């Protein structure tokens, strides 16, 4: 336990927007005693809670840590507040005064941290964790110690002596043994027994695994033997010599195939490989060979296509040449018979000219005949034979001449000539068409032959003669095809055979391993090197667990030794305060230390050693609770620890005599350390008013909005 560097004590409280306090409010504490009197709902308890919140933060209203059920729903900030919540506690510290301020933002989230600031003499300012560390350094209590030993809360006062854990905690605190107790509790929570359970469970599981392992291999052996039987292989082949023969045979079969298909060396089996290594290699053999066969198969397909193409081109060449010769002969025959197409076209042009001339003659003849017919018509219309109605000529003679002229017109002759010429032009057109068709056939055949020859030349090596080149190339391609087919067939045959051989080889290896396991696992687990490693780990863990338990025991032994030194002084102190608070109490109270299997507990007993808490009435219980409260505080004062007490309505179940006794006890203790009390007006407050000294401060708290504090 660290001795306090200076007795820290509060002198002033400033409150802003805290619970019922809307706006700002301040209260100077008395040097010894501060009494806050007021009716219910006046805000007395809120003032005390503000002190606690400033010192200890939100733990005081956290339902998980207060142990005071109704605190869980408390709201810190004033519901009408428009600004942040702030409480400042002025403390007397070494070298002057310090101001501890805790602030919470108006819209702070539930889990958001408060802002904490401490201004020390010399304007040194600490914030956040620095303030927490400073409070710890001065020996200020944590919340658990505070609620049991620094504050008399109505909700938990009696538990201080009636609840075994609380009572033991308080008395241990009174005896200056909190650190020992905290250490023991912390070590106990680590639960070293978990390690023992973990080790036991692990060993149990291993034993079960071993049991299963003893059964499994024989079943495995039987299964493998059945598989071999289905393949007509005897289980006796799993011997070392037989496996060695198979190992060598597999390598001997695989190597030439691998080399033939061009497998890289790392994918080929080595002569010195173990059977197990050969088996592992064999698992991937098929996929590796397949991977290399795929491009070979592709190459074979390409080769076959090339041979087909070359052969087809070569075979098509001669027929094409014969066809070209025929086409040429036919074309030349037609030319010699009909002349050239140009001659034929010139003849047709001449005929076309003649046809045009004849057609013009026929048109003119037609017009002349029309005029003659018209003239005949005029003569006949005149009705006279002696004289033409138009001229003076003889009408009969004129009509006769006109008839003769019409008869000798030559229109039929022209038509005959036209028909002959048209017939001639038709014959010439037919001959021209034959010639053009023969020309086209010849040209097409010639182009086709040129293309074929070009293709063929493209397939031949440069500079080679056609016939010799084709023959030589085809021979080379066919030879290459044969080699490839041979390689692929070799690989296919190997794969077909190796698959079965590798399966048998694997089964035989597994059979040998299963037989070994069946023999090996029948032995003791502890013979395994891994078991020694496990044992080492368990030993280390056991050492750690033993150390934890030993430390816990040592802490308890130290607590016990220290308690023996302090109990007498504490007993005197408790009885002193008990006699003041409860003047008629006749029993002598003693702290009794009791050992359980795992911890020390403290009881309050009478002179006969009987447990007191089970027999006392309400008033006596409350009195004893307060007596232990003051006794504990007195011990801490004697140790130089920071000490001030906060009492919230401490007079419950106390009659006038007890209340007045309590007032005297409070007054006496306040000479040792400051006491701040909130209470309803009562015999207790009256007695304190009577005992008031100049260093005390008595105030009245009014519960109007906002809360007001009036000094009496």
């Amino acid at each position: 336990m660290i001795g306090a560097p200076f007795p820290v004590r509060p002198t002033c409280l400033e409150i802003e927007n805290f619970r019922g306090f809307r706006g700002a409010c301040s209260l100077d504490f008395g040097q010894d005693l501060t009494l806050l009197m007021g009716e219910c709902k006046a805000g007395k308890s809120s003032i005390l809670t503000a002190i606690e919140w400033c010192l200890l933060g939100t733990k005081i209203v956290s339902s998980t840590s207060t142990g005071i059920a109704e605190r869980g729903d408390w709201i810190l900030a004033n519901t009408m507040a428009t600004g942040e919540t702030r409480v400042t506690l002025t403390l007397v510290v070494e070298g002057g005064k310090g101001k501890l301020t805790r602030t919470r933002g108006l819209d702070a989230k539930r889990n958001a941290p408060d802002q904490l600031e401490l201004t020390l003499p010399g304007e040194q300012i600490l914030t956040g964790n620095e303030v927490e560390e400073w409070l710890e350094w001065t020996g200020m209590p944590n919340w658990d110690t505070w609620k049991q030993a620094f504050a008399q809360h109505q909700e938990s006062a009696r538990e201080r002596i009636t609840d075994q854990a609380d009572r033991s905690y308080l008395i241990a605190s009174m005896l200056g043994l909190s650190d020992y107790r905290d250490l023991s509790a912390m070590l106990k929570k680590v639960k070293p027994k978990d390690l023992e359970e973990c080790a036991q469970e692990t060993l149990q599981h291993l034993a079960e695994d071993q049991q299963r392992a003893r059964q499994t291999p024989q079943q495995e052996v039987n299964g493998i033997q059945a598989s071999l039987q289905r393949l007509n292989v005897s289980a006796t082949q799993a011997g070392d010599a037989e496996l060695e023969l198979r190992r060598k045979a597999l390598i001997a079969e695989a190597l030439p195939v691998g080399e033939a298909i061009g497998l890289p060396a790392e994918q080929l089996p080595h002569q010195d490989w173990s059977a197990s290594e050969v088996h592992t290699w064999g698992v991937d053999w098929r996929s590796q060979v397949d991977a290399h066969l795929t491009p070979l198969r592709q190459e074979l397909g390409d080769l076959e296509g090339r041979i087909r193409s070359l052969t087809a081109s070569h075979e098509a060449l001669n027929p094409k040449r014969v066809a070209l010769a025929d086409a040429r002969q036919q074309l030349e025959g037609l030319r010699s018979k009909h002349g050239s197409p140009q001659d034929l076209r010139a003849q047709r042009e001449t005929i076309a000219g003649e046809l045009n001339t004849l057609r013009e003659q026929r048109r003119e003849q037609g017009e002349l005949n029309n005029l003659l017919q018209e003239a005949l018509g005029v003569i006949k219309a005149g009705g006279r034979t002696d004289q033409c109605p138009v001229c003076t000529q003889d009408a009969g003679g004129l009509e006769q001449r006109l008839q003769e002229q019409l008869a000798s017109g030559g229109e039929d002759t022209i038509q005959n000539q036209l028909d002959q010429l048209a017939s001639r032009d038709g014959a010439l057109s037919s001959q021209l068409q034959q010639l053009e068709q023969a020309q086209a056939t010849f040209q097409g055949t010639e182009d086709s032959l040129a293309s074929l020859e070009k293709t063929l030349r493209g397939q031949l090596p440069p500079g080679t003669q056609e016939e010799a080149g084709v023959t030589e190339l085809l021979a080379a391609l066919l030879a290459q095809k044969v080699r490839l087919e041979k390689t692929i067939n070799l690989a296919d045959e190997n794969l077909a055979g190796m698959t079965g051989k590798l399966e048998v080889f694997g089964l035989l290896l597994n059979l040998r391993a299963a037989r070994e396991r069946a023999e090996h696992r029948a032995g003791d687990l502890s013979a395994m090197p891994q078991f020694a490693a496990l044992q080492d780990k368990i030993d280390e863990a056991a050492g750690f667990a033993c150390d934890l338990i030993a430390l816990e025991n040592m802490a308890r032994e130290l607590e016990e030794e220290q308690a023996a030194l302090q109990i007498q002084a504490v007993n005197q102190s408790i009885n002193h305060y008990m006699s003041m608070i409860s003047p008629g109490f006749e029993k002598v109270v003693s702290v009794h230390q009791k050992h359980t299997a795992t911890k020390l507990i403290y009881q309050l007993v009478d002179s006969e050693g009987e447990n007191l808490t089970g027999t006392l009435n309400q008033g006596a219980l409350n009195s004893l609770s307060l007596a232990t409260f003051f006794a504990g505080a007195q011990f801490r004062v004697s140790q130089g620890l920071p000490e001030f007490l906060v009492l919230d309505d401490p007079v419950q179940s106390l009659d006038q005599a007890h209340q007045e006794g309590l007032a005297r006890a409070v007054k006496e203790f306040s000479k040792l350390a400051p006491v701040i009390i909130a209470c309803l007006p009562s015999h207790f407050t009256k007695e304190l008013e009577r005992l008031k000294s100049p260093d005390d401060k008595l105030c009245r708290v009014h519960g109007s909005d906002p809360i007001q504090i009036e000094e009496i």
Partner: protein
Amino acid sequence: MRVLDELEAIIRKRGVRVEERLELLNRLRKSDPSQEQLNQRLAEFKTAIQGAARAIQKEIR
């Protein structure tokens, strides 16, 4: 903490597993919060035991 100094004195006086126990005390002195550190150490031991057991199980299965 004074209690840790007193414990150190007892450990040295009794002379049993001194190094290991002083190492534990040092953890308590240095670590904050101490209990979480010890729980973590305990969990490490559990993991080590289970790891060693798995090596055996792998061998015998």
